[in-house]
């Protein structure tokens, strides 16, 4: 069986799973996952084969590229259904399929009691299909299609519990906000076609730089294209100012949050910008913009995450923040670091979300951290795995997060984006802090759980704990496996070919890491910052020291006091900097007014004119019928007068 067939299978299998589950799922009752889960496992196996072949250079320099059929043959505008696999794709495949598979397994347990679970698995399969298409797509339009399809599955899954109005609204919000970005994306694609006349990745990345260097494309045009494309990325990866949908997306079942809104879909933007590096890297302005947006989102989201009460929302904002990190990395030219962080983050954030799901399950669908606490004894597996995740995201060596995050900061510093580096470091501190705030409020200190629920708390089923454990492993080891030795790790070997053009364009030379030089200092610095953040969090929200077996009690009064000290900042953070309220006013209130106004205009003015004409005609008729008085003499006089007129006309105008 040839590689193209295998790659195609990656798309076919989930699709088949979706269709079958959608058709017969309802009859499967409790065993709804019986089709979906195995199919995804199979997909994972195939994906691993493909990944292995790719990373072991099985596809050569250019990677695998093949066309299934001609999708849109519109005259000169021809878009094939073409798939491409290179190392970058491979890296994404690892995350997507692995996390995807684990989430499927986890869902078997998590959704065990939901009547609509068959829909859930169908949607999950649909998502897997869309996401795989997204990473395998060989041209812009196909990628855009997948882009929209993942949006669709995210819409369906966020709104999975549609009887809950908030869920339905959140789903709609996610779709719409994404659409805003997609407008730009679509326009960008059009711009590309009108400039180079093709949409195939390979050809575009060949032609565009050529024409640019040949001076056929002005820098502003290139910047324009990059900007438009970036809009899409901003939307999908929930960067400022389109970040508002992601927190609400937590209305969806937790596995969905883990899979779509942490590990895979939201990374699509990062992947896409990385994929389009030949374009971006040609426009310094674009790069700077990406970096700016990224780092700003990072700090913004982190600042909000500090004060949120809802466990999933904290994670959501942390996701935003981490994605911001990745964009910052892309912006400063540290592409490899970005993808590296994408992968590690995919795993540990997936872990954290699934863990939070397990917690929520344990306390009977309670998400408010103020009503948790002291859970670590009752759900040990969840606790330990989540602790690992927390340490990983905090960037504590030697866990995965440490390596990827460090490469980003290092890259920023190396490439001279000191401000980015500085903020990045601060965000690292915040991250460490709010993660352990989360841990503390959830697992340590006294329990605030509803007493009626308290006794019923128990560890989740195997279906859920096993995936947690499996995800914990990469969260610990992935960094060391791929990142060591620093700067020359596997990840670098894999991805350098992908980004070499970009490196040239940016004029970046990749000099080896000096452990006992500037890099060393940065490493120590960031680690220290993270440790400091953790320390403070522990002092405020408590901790359970595993080895010593002793506890550090939380100190709520201190927290209150601190919030008192900077009330404005606290409120700003707590109200998410009022973005949602702003949007509400702008789009719901004002937009609604405009729409209603236009409708009035349509009825009163446009249609009014039409009916007005009719009324005028009828009115004229009513007036004219009055001349028919019914009196013969009037008629005769009328005739006589008309006769005079005609006669005068003839005698004067005609005669002579």
């Amino acid at each position, binding site marked *: 069986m040839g590689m193209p067939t295998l790659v195609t299978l990656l798309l076919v299998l989930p699709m088949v799973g979706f269709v079958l589950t959608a058709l017969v799922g309802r009859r499967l009752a409790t065993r709804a996952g019986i089709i979906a889960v195995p199919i995804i496992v199979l997909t994972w196996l195939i994906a691993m084969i493909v990944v292995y072949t790719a990373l072991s250079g099985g596809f050569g320099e250019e990677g695998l590229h093949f066309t299934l059929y001609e999708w849109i043959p519109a005259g000169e505008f021809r878009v094939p259904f073409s798939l491409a696999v290179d190392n970058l794709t491979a890296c994404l495949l690892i995350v997507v399929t692995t996390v995807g598979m684990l989430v499927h397994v986890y869902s078997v347990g998590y959704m065990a009691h939901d009547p609509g679970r068959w829909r859930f698995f169908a949607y999950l399969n649909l998502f897997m299909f869309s996401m795989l298409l997204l990473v395998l797509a060989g041209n812009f339009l196909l990628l855009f299609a997948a882009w929209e399809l993942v949006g669709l599955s995210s819409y369906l899954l966020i709104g999975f519990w549609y009887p809950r109005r908030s869920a339905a609204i959140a789903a709609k919000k996610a779709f719409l906000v994404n659409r805003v970005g997609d407008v730009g994306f679509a326009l960008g694609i059009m711009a590309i076609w009108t400039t180079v006349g093709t949409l195939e990745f390979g050809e575009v990345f060949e032609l565009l730089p050529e024409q640019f260097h040949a001076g056929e494309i002005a820098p502003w045009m290139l910047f324009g294209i990059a900007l438009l494309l970036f809009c899409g990325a901003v939307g999908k990866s929930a960067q400022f100012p389109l970040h508002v949908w992601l927190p609400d997306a937590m209305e969806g079942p937790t596995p969905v949050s883990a899979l779509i809104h942490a590990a895979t879909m939201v990374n699509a933007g990062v992947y896409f910008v990385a994929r389009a590096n030949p374009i971006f890297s040609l426009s310094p302005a674009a790069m700077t913009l990406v970096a700016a947006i990224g780092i700003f989102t990072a700090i913004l989201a982190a600042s909000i995450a500090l004060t949120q009460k809802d466990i999933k929302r904290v994670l959501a904002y942390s996701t935003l923040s981490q994605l911001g990190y990745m964009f910052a990395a892309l912006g400063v030219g540290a592409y490899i670091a970005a993808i590296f962080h994408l992968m590690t983050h995919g795993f540990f954030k997936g872990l954290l979300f699934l863990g939070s799901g397990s917690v929520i399950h344990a306390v009977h669908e309670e998400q408010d951290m103020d009503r948790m606490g002291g859970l670590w004894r009752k759900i040990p597996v969840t606790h330990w795995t989540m602790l690992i995740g927390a340490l990983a995201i905090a960037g504590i060596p030697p866990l995965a997060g440490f390596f990827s995050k460090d490469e980003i900061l290092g890259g920023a510093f190396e490439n001279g984006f000191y401000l980015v580096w500085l903020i990045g470091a601060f965000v690292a501190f915040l991250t460490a802090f709010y993660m352990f705030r989360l841990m503390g409020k959830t697992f340590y200190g006294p329990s605030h759980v509803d007493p009626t629920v308290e006794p019923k708390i128990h560890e989740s089923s195997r279906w859920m704990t096993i995936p947690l454990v499996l995800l914990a492993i990469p969260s610990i080891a992935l960094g060391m496996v791929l990142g060591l030795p620093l700067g020359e790790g596997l990840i670098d070997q894999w991805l350098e070919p992908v980004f070499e053009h970009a490196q040239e364009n940016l004029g970046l030379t990749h000099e080896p890491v000096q452990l006992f030089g500037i890099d060393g200092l940065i490493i120590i610095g960031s680690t220290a910052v993270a440790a400091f953040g953790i320390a403070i969090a522990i002092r405020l929200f408590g901790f359970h020291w595993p080895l010593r077996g002793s506890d550090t009690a939380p100190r709520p009064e201190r927290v209150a006091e601190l919030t008192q000290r900077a009330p404005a900042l606290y409120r700003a953070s707590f109200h998410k900097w009022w973005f949602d309220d702003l949007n509400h006013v702008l789009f719901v209130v004002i937009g609604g007014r405009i729409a209603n106004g236009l409708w009035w205009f349509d009825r009163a003015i446009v249609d009014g004119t039409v009916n007005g004409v009719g009324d005028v005609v009828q009115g004229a008729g009513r007036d004219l019928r009055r001349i028919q008085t019914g*009196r013969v*003499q*009037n008629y005769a*006089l009328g005739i*006589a*007068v008309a*006769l*005079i007129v005609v*006669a*005068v006309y003839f*005698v004067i105008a005609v*005669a002579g």
Partner: protein
Amino acid sequence: MTLPETIPLLGWTWNDLLFLILAGTLVGTALMVVLGRNIIRSGLWLILCFATLAGLYALLGNAIVAVAQVLVYMGAIAVLILFAIMLTQTKGGPAALVFHHQAWAAAIAAIVIGGLLAIVDGASGWPLAGEFMRTSTEAVAALLFGDYVLAFEIVGVLLLAAVIGGVFLAKRDDSPETPG
């Protein structure tokens, strides 16, 4: 004794005098017809008016038409009209208000029309107008039964149709009839 060729002092021919008299009578009687308050009197004035016209036709040397005028108009039409008047007199005698309220407008319109006609007649020469000549009855008869025989027939039919219809409309029949 013989009358002089022209009337002394005035220098008119006798025909002219006759014309003037007839014309005056014509206009006068016609005015009486349309202005008379009593409709029956109007009818009588109409007869007189017809007679004057007969005179004018004679003056124009058209004997046969003059005769026909007397027979048809005075003998038939006028009488017919008088009968109709008798038949349609409301007990209240002659209607109080003879004229329609638009009489003044009517007068103006009529004067304008008359004026137009008169002016036009005067203003434009009649290219074919020649010397005055009498009309011989034979010629008329020849035409009537020659080229105009079709016309003659049609008039016959016309009168027949008029009579049939007139009889139907005028006759009082008591057949049950529901308005539709």
